[in-house]
């Protein structure tokens, strides 16, 4: 595709609900990254994939967060039993290789009420 696409753009979830956030990277991009951006702050790294392999998940804040990229293309970030502190913008980025420029999507704004 023309760019990194994320859906939905906005998501409101009731506390305790499970959510799934989708990222469609640029076609052919090997590397995919997820970041969490709380209101008024800079993004924080969550996890990194190279093709279908999750090579780094050190930034996932708890075991309620789970990411997958089963076919090395589309990725899904799942948050179980959402809490208010999970409210943030979730950004996805992809790059052709890990050391080349990363292109970001427009993010999903998650609000937990």
């Amino acid at each position, binding site marked *: 595709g023309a760019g990194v696409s994320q859906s939905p753009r906005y998501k409101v979830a009731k506390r305790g609900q499970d959510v799934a956030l989708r990222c469609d990277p640029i076609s052919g991009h090997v590397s995919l990254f997820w970041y969490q951006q709380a209101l008024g702050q*800079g*993004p924080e*790294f969550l996890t990194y994939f190279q093709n279908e392999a999750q090579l780094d998940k050190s930034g996932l804040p708890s075991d309620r967060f789970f990411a997958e990229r089963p076919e090395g293309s589309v990725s899904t970030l799942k948050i179980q039993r959402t809490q208010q502190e999970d409210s943030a913008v979730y*950004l996805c980025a992809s790059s052709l290789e890990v050391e080349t420029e990363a292109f970001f999507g*427009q993010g999903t704004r998650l609000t937990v009420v």
Partner: protein
Amino acid sequence: AQTVTQSQPEMSVQEAETVTLSCTYDTSENNYYLFWYKQPPSRQMILVIRQEAYKQQNATENRFSVNFQKAAKSFSLKISDSQLGDTAMYFCASAANAGNMLTFGGGTRLMVKP
């Protein structure tokens, strides 16, 4: 571990003038990369400029240039001939080696006034 600090939460500049955004960082890596990203209200992060730490020459991209002071661990962004479209959040970031696992600063909100 890496840390990135932006000490200016907000800045403003008159259209056509020059503004400098500050950034300091800390890293234990020998080889690292530094970035400036622009985030407009659409939320999409856009790469403005990138500097490889082993290169002494400061990176430039049209109206954007950096002042990279490696010993002081400082990486400021200069925007010349500011335009209304430059109004956005600006984030400084670092990455170990050549990777894109970025560590971001807290951001500076820049407003360009007509």
